[in-house]
């Protein structure tokens, strides 16, 4: 990660490093219970990585369910995958990959203290996230119209299905159950991502960040990379193979 190159200098709070009162021992962004800015930055980063480990395990259950049912019903999975819109999925993949680039650049520009550029890059990331959700909305809409719904709500309408695709077996509802669970849980993560991106955008505008303090941008970017990473696995598993 490029973020490791520039870590906050302990010297930033060093002038008052010996004191320990609230707001009296360093910059105003240094919380009362930390001794140095480096300690605060490292704690936040470690906490975020631990949280990301948690996220991976959270998705792992869905990936295992996918693996098990694909193994048991390979024909059903192949037939059902034909009903997913590869073009939309591919577009979304590109959109998310691009948004990962912009948020990584935002971290860089925050590190060098370029507030204006940071704001623009965060906004671009938010725009990409919204675009992803809009495309996802149209995909979901099409599935709803075609009756391609989870479990007992699975009632396909022939006129809405992809022409020339293999016939759908009776238990295809299980595939769409897994599809909606995986993309739905991922979509919730995108929504939360938009929330925290807006939060750092506001704070950036307010002038909270500087060369010395950009921790929130850094950890939100880490989270956003994970959201991207999960989709990079979802797209081929659900749409392509």
């Amino acid at each position, binding site marked *: 990660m490029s973020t490791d190159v520039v870590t906050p200098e302990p010297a930033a709070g060093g002038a008052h490093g010996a004191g320990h*009162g609230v707001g009296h021992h360093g910059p105003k962004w240094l919380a009362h219970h930390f001794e140095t800015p480096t300690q605060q930055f490292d704690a936040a980063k470690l906490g975020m990585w631990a949280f990301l480990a948690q996220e991976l395990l959270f998705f*792992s259950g869905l990936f295992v369910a996918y693996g098990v049912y694909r193994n048991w019903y390979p024909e059903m999975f192949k037939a059902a995958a034909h009903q997913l819109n590869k073009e939309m999925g591919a577009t979304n993949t590109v959109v998310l990959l691009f948004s990962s680039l912009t948020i990584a650049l935002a971290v860089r520009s925050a590190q060098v203290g370029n507030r204006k550029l940071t704001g623009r890059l965060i906004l671009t990331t938010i725009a990409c996230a919204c675009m992803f959700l809009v495309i996802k909305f149209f995909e979901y809409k099409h599935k709803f119209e075609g009756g391609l719904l989870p479990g007992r709500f699975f009632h396909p309408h022939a006129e809405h299905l992809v022409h020339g695709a293999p016939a759908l077996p009776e238990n295809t509802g*299980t595939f769409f159950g897994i599809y909606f669970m995986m993309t739905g849980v991922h979509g919730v993560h995108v929504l939360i991502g938009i929330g925290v991106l807006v939060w750092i955008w506001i704070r950036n505008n307010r002038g909270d960040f500087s060369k010395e303090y950009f921790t929130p941008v850094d950890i939100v970017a880490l989270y956003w990379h994970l959201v991207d990473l999960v989709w990079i696995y979802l797209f081929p598993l659900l749409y392509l193979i």
Partner: protein
Amino acid sequence: MAAITTTPGHHDEVDPNVSYLKSTRGIMSWLTTLDHKRIGVMYLISVSVAFALGGVFALLVRLELFSRGRTIMDADTYNRMFSLHGVVMVFLFIIPSIPAAMGNIILPIQLGAKDVAFPRLNLLSLYVYIFGACFGIYSMINGGVDTGWTFYTPYSSSDPAHGGVGSPSAVIPMTLAAFIMGFSSILTGVNFIATIHKMRAPGLTWRRLTLFTWSLYATSIIQVLATPVLAITLLLLTMERFLGLGIFDPRLGGDPVLFQHFFWFYSHPAVYIMIVPGMGIVSELIATFSRREPVGYMAIAMSSLGLALLGFLVWGHHLFVAGMSEYATMVFSALTFLVAIPSGVKIFNWVATLYKGSISLQSPMLWALSFLFLFTIGGLTGLFLGMLAVDVHLHDTYFVVAHFHYVMVGGTVMGFFGGLHYWWPKFTGKMYEEGLAKVGWFFVFIGFNVTFLTQFVLGSRGMPRRYYDYLPKFEQLHQISTVGSWVLGVGFIIILINLARSLIGGKPAPRNPWGSAALEWMTPSPPPLYNFVKDPVLTRGQYDYQLATDDELYEGYDDPLFPNAKMIAAKRAAEGAGE
């Protein structure tokens, strides 16, 4: 050389002579606090209420089983009672009991820190827990669940309202409750990992961490890595019941055994979330009340991490009769035996610490010694169940019930109450009555063994768990077990009365009532808002009794049998006369 040298810094706005209990006033100052000690106290109250509730369910279950046929409730109510007992005890009490309640208060103090790494996340975890508990209470108001705490599919996932044949009870709110409370547990784990890594005081190296801290570190790793799997499992279960996904329901092409794999992938590691912090407390108690460094300090610390690792590899032993392949059962059986190694390392090191230690049998130590007895029985009977051929006979009998109660109650609850009595003076600044505390312990110890030793016999004779009714030959043993549960209940009531009385009329607690060398006893009881009057710098380990000064160890330690106490008093008097 003193353990605590000081840096010149002071907390400008915080008066170090005012305790955290009195630093600010009013209910809102508690509900919006970021102080880890206050959050811990609120957790402690919450889990104690949950423990009482779960205990009432347990007494009702035992009362129903007092005689054959109907005693006080019908079979359907009985199913709900034992399910609620399990759900409340596991998710509302035992998981958050030691880490989130006592760990929250003690961990930062033992690290010499002002707070946990993320105080706001800490408060959030409490509110997430309470939010989850609200779902649980909503479910109980709507009749509760009758699925057992394990929510096994397809009974839990097949909803009669949608043409299914499963449980008609309020399953979805209860699974959502466990789902939400899981996030509380994850947040605590994330917070503790960052805290232990980054918030240690100068001089507090990894080798100087207390064994309680090591156990919380191991526990946090499990909480972060296992709990999300339960979360997604319960979400899938909710959706299965709501939408009929067909993942767990065999009628729809799903696999109920997959649910068991998912569930135990969390819930077996969760057993170590429950027991490892209890072991941490016992390590503290044995060190303090033997007045020496624990033998095999590093071995005990690493065995906590060993349990955390092995905990992830043995979930299959819950499924020996559920239709796994023979090869899988053999591998899981072999891995299960490995768990005995880190557990044994701990037990032997504790016993070695006692050997030639200067033991004082004060009330917290009684709980630690009971832990040694009861956990050993619980652990060894676990090996019976890990053995394939024996498990086929004992699976789903009272033998299993007795086994995990010896681990969970004989282990964790003994550790919990040991820690509660040990740190009560630190938490509240009050001393309880030592004699009554011992009486309470005695009732619990006797009552527990009468209740559950009987159940080993019942189980090995073939009494299945969760049954409403039983054969005449089991009646006498069931009655003994039920009477035991009353003794157990009386014990807990005595403890409650004793602790409550100490709050009202208890003597003020000295700084170090037990003569311990650990860091939390170097600060006033109760501690000030930022934990220490002056920022600690460690120049010795927390068990280095030979390096601690007499003032550090014995200020306020008024055991008349202990010559040093008199010696210090004499020294003080001489110094006073000299000036």
